[in-house]
């Protein structure tokens, strides 16, 4: 008996131990891969770049929206309490924090993977470097000092230090030049992206132009003549069309163009509440009407009763006329911005590129008129409006080049119109730097005389990176370094 038990016991133990290697070998996730190829990483990164500018797929407001709100482009129709913090300029550590967090945790996370590839994927690597520069400039423009040299290291550094904003700007120029070098020196065997590059379809010359265009944006914003000269010296020049991201947006839930999805209609063609809630301000309607700007009907939907804007931050919508500002009566976002659910999502307008060149040429004493007018034409083209040349021929200041005594004001004011509803955050950065357009009203709910000049670091940084995050600078006075 004892032997039977002993052997039975031993037998069970031996059998179990012998097979345990295999028995326990079930820890491979069947639903999530641990290795993927660059072709699968790139389109996600680029789609997130578009989301950061336009809106998240879930309708989270991002750069374009805060730009439109702070630059008095958009207001709110009756029946909604949609933008209370925007109208109060309530810049807090929970205000538009997605711009900070999504930059790092979505697009930059993916681009970082590309920058670590070997030379077989030099083209992907260069794209990663260029797009990192694009995003870090945005981060600096919104926040000033941000994590840069120690950022994106995941488990290797959970608490990256904050780098000096001006230093980051300088390094971005170096990185953009390096990226162009990587493209030019890529081995012939290097894989060239195809349709997975949902910005330029793998056209590496376009990437060089885009890198150079971003470099010029950096040079102009920081008034750095050396960088400006470097950009103008690049033989490929600048972008020649609007930079659009389009993975193949379709009229399906979760697959629509994110701007359309938030400010237009859902996949069943039902107008979103945000589309009803959002409309033009009084000031912008009047401005466009006074300058006989044909873009008005493209930037804003014209109600049957004619264009009507709403004072930003209005509290009493029913005085003197009840229901005057219900969605049907006001100028909601227009068809030039809301083209279709499948339209590409813009992350850099051709118009802005021209205006940046114009400002650069102006700063170096050149004649910027044709660049200025090309910018206006590009803006008309984007919106689908016609009559640009007639528009800028009007003898009106900040419309016609000749009639503009302050050329810089004309450029920046036109950039304000050209980025309206597309990349309006750029207009806010320019305002903080130049103070143009002049006489732009502040929200009626603002408790300050002017708009904020920066965003606050998110609360998550205070709790998770408290040792490094700078104390919150004053949102209304602590300008980003290039605005001083």
């Amino acid at each position, binding site marked *: 008996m004892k032997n039977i038990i*002993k052997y039975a016991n031993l037998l069970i133990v031996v059998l*179990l131990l012998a097979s345990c*290697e295999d028995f*326990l*070998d*079930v*820890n*491979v996730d069947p639903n*999530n*891969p*641990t290795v993927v190829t660059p072709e*699968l*990483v790139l*389109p*996600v990164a680029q*789609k997130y770049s578009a989301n950061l500018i336009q809106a998240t*797929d879930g309708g989270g407001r991002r750069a374009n929206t805060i730009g439109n709100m702070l630059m008095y482009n958009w207001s709110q129709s009756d*029946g909604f*309490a949609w933008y*209370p913090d925007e109208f109060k300029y309530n810049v807090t*550590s*929970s205000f538009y924090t997605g711009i*900070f967090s999504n930059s*790092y*945790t979505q697009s930059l*996370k*993916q681009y*970082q*993977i590309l920058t670590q590839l070997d030379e077989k994927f030099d083209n992907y690597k260069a794209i990663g470097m260029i797009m990192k520069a694009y995003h870090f400039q945005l981060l600096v423009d919104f926040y000033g000092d*941000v*994590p840069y040299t120690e950022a*994106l290291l*995941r*488990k290797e550094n959970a608490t990256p230090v904050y780098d000096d904003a001006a230093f980051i700007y300088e390094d971005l120029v170096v990185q953009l030049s390096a990226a162009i070098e990587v493209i030019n020196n890529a081995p012939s065997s290097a894989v060239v992206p195809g*349709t997975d590059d949902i910005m330029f379809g793998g056209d590496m010359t376009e990437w060089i132009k885009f890198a150079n265009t971003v470099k010029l944006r950096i040079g102009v914003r920081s008034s750095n003549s050396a960088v400006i000269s470097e950009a103008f010296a690049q033989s490929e020049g600048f972008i020649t069309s609007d930079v659009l991201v389009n*993975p*193949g947006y*379709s009229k*399906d839930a*979760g*697959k629509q163009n994110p701007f359309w999805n938030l400010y237009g209609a*859902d*996949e069943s063609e*039902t*107008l979103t*509440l945000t589309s009803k809630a959002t409309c033009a301000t009084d000031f912008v309607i009047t401005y466009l009407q006074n300058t006989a700007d044909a873009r008005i009907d493209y930037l804003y939907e014209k109600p049957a009763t004619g264009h009507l804007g709403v004072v930003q931050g209005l*509290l*009493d919508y029913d005085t003197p006329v009840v229901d005057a500002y*219900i*969605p*049907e009566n006001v100028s909601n976002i227009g068809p030039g911005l809301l083209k279709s659910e499948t339209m590409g999502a813009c992350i850099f307008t051709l118009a802005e590129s021209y205006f940046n060149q114009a400002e650069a040429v102006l700063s170096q004493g050149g004649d910027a008129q044709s660049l200025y007018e090309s910018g206006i034409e590009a803006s008309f083209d984007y919106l689908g409006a016609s009559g640009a040349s007639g528009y800028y021929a009007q003898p009106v200041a900040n419309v016609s080049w000749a009639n503009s005594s302050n050329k810089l004001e004309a450029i920046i004011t036109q950039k304000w119109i050209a980025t309206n509803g597309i990349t309006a955050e750029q207009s806010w950065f320019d305002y903080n730097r130049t103070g143009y357009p002049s006489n732009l009203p502040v929200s009626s709910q603002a408790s300050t005389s002017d708009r904020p000049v920066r965003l606050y670091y*998110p*609360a998550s*940084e*205070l*709790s*998770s*990176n408290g040792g*490094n995050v700078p104390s*919150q600078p004053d949102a209304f006075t602590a300008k980003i370094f290039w605005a001083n």
Partner: protein
Amino acid sequence: MKTKFNGLLTLLLVLMVQVTFAQKKTVTGTVTDASGPLPGVTVLIKGTNTGTQTDFDGNYSISVKEGDILKFSYIGMNTTEKIVGTSNQINVTMNESAQALEEVVVTALGIKREKREVTYQTQKVSDESLTVVAPTRAASALAGKVAGLQINVQDNGVNPSSQIILRGLRSVSGSNSALIVIDGSVSTQGAFDDLNPLDIANISVLKGATAAALYGSNAGNGALIVTTKKGSFGGKLKVGINTSYTAETVAYLPKFQSEYGTGWEGAYDAVENTNWGPRFDGTLRQIGPTFPADYGLATQMVPYAPVKNNMLDFFETGDTFNNTVYLSGSNEDSSFYVSVGDQRSDGIVPDDTYKRNTFRVNASKKIGDVTLTASTSFFNDETDVVGGSIGDQDRPLYWFILNTATNIPLTDYKDWQNPLGYGYADNYFNAYYQNPYWAIGTNRNTDETSRFVGNFNISWDIKEWLNFTARIAANNAWGNGKNWRAAQEYNADLQPAAGAVSSFVTDSEFQSAIYNGDFLFSGNFEFEDDFTLKSILGGNVYQSKYRTSSIRANNLSIPDFYDISNGTGTPATNADGNEKRSFGFFADLTFGYKNYLFLNLAGRNDWTSTLASDSNSYFYPSVGVSFVFTDAIEALQNNDILNYGKLTYSNSTVYSDLDPYRINESYFQSGGFPYGSINGFELGGTSIDANIAKEKINTNEIGLNLGFFNSRVSLDASYFNTVTSDLITFTTPSVASASTRFLTNIGELEGNGIELSLSGTVLKSEDFSWDLNINYTSSETKVNSIKEGLDEIAVTTTGQYGVYAVVGEAFPQIKANVYQRDPQGRIIVDGTSGHPLTEETLQNMGKTTPDYILGFNSVVNYKGFTLSGTLDYRTGHVYYEQGSDAMEFTGRSIASVSANRQDFVIPNSVIETSPGVYSENTNVQVAGGRQNYWTDVYNDVKSNYVKDATALKLREIALSYSLPKDVLDKIKLTKVTFGLIGRNLFTKLPEENRFSDPEFNNTNSNAIGIGGYFQSPPTKSFGFNVNVEF
């Protein structure tokens, strides 16, 4: 350790050959107790290991020699000794042990032990106590009955869920729920919830990690050992019917203001969901859209005055019918228990229904020395409730009810399908949120789940002192669900602001399979010099597999046809699954000395699939001592006051492993992808420590069990200290690191607590008795450390409030943003706007587990009447009233009328005139007191919604009557009991908690303390119960 095992084996073998031979004769006899023959009684020749057991009829037969002493022992009975004389027949009548401490304890792995041997604290809940108010879930019936056990009933739906926590929390990111063991095999809370409570024989609660350590890595949170009914012995077939009916109604609703009605910015608005209108004046006013003259329906006019109970009347009385038929019986070598249960419920929300059927077959058969036992159950339920993502904003139903102003006669809108009724979508008064009756008719969530549990056990009494048991258990659950929403478009002339609702249908299914195998040898040895040894050697294999998938189609082409084929565009699909395996070996040795001193040594080694192969093995030891001092110390023996006293100490170390697939970072298909042929994968947000390893839990426990007045009164007391280190924790790195969570081993949690359980018979006479049990639990878990430079971890957070682990504070801790205050505690306001300033960083607001839980259980018997009740009081904790927060926007809160909707000076506020200098604010009023202050400023200070979670609940009360035996004999029945039952009939909450039951919680995770928005209002129920046995 290997050598130690070998040593034990050798010891076993040496003892096995120690058999003596002498001149023998055969003695036979029958052992009985008060109720008849007693099977399974151990008959031993004293001083030897030779013996036998009585059969199913209580008979035994044994070879002895004259002069031997036969020792008859049975757990729960007084041991009896008889000297073998000349007679060849010795019949014995055994008496139930008077001492409560002799009661049987079902310990880990289903092993029964006398309570005196047990070196840790356990508490048993009987079937009577579990089913006194005919609960549909056993978990809810445990609340208040066991010291150290916290049951959080998280919602009151027709298919409620609860969280079962023993001795507070031990882990920040890992599970803190108690292990569930059913009929000896590790099971799941799902299987526990699916049990028919009437099938449960008893639940033994093993409170600490030591008690459960033999179960391996799942045991750190203590365990509930559930034993199902096995069949009554005694030969008679028993047939019983148990019928109950309960009516469920809303217990209480949030307290709202009733001074102001529909409107915006102080002006009346006929289509508003918000309550920012003028003060109620009783005048007849238009409500809803203006209909054209030829519309066929007059524009609705209602008095501008509060409608009493307008929300309460929306909810119906829910009904639950519960019927169980059971059979049980036995003969000399077999027993069985069979039951069929049927529950049908209608919820308090109109049209919510729930049906469930339970079947159980338990049987055992003895063949020679081998006993085969099978316990099998099948469960099936069908749930049909209102969908959870209603309207164009995907809100829960309660939201639509809450967004109905006090002046709206909500129950007038039932007729939602009639185009000429006020409930019709185009005609409904509320321009922003749809008619809840419409929501019920057009949004459904249906679900069908089945579960099969099979538990097969073979027990071989190799020798009287040696048993081999093997057990295999299967726990399979599967189900499918369909969730759908109808489309709704609006006539823009009538409903200009309404957002059209899109349609969808989601089909989902899941399968879960858990297999668990155990084998164990247990040997009991008695040595001549007062020493005993009980030993267990065994092993365990475990495997769990889970798989789920769903497919969703949007914008259906054919109305009211809910099939994936009816969708347009690309359906969204999802599939997910996981698998985990482990095995382990264990040994458990209990040395006894003179039956009053016991030393227990136990150890287990586990290997798990979820850790890296070089670190997937871990050993955990435990040690315990039990000392029955009333037996050991002569002066204390035969003491009439203190008749029993036991002191225990135990220590154990247990490890927790990871969830499957956690050791490698992985990619996932990014949202929205694929777009046509473009696919995209994204690196997961979680970064993982390359050296991620197991979490360690070390527990010390001291216990004292006292019996007074012949155990009429008993007191159990325990103190425990639990330290969890190397916490497997998701920390929150800077988002700039490109990850949102970091999985690592850091920090230390320490839990300390005291449990007291006082039970006794207060009064006892022939016809009357009153038994009382009071449980007191006080425990707190503190965060000792996290890591250098990191002093908190967010379990969940919105940035303005959340649940955190904070160094030096109790866990879980609610943090929220707060007003800035001067050194005297006065609120600092802005000198211009009068608005309060808020602190930049979130502040600790309090813990979400109570300081203490006090449970009262009382049973009064008078003749055939029994009155029993369970009361439970919890205090010292806070919760986040998410519903109040969400409702502030609508102007329905009592706070919003506290200044009569005027601009006002915040009481006791100051203005900072120069740095550090504060002057009292006497004249700067807040702007927007009419509305915007409340919606935009007050609502942004989330500490306003952190409330005292204290609650006193009369969880159970029942009055029953059982027919006396003489009447039963006449009508040829063995048992007839009628009962009136009530659940949660009374709840007392502090004045400041105006919203909901603080026990409600959004998730079953460690984010305890945020609730009240997604759950329907709390309910109470009342009904009756009839039990008849033939």
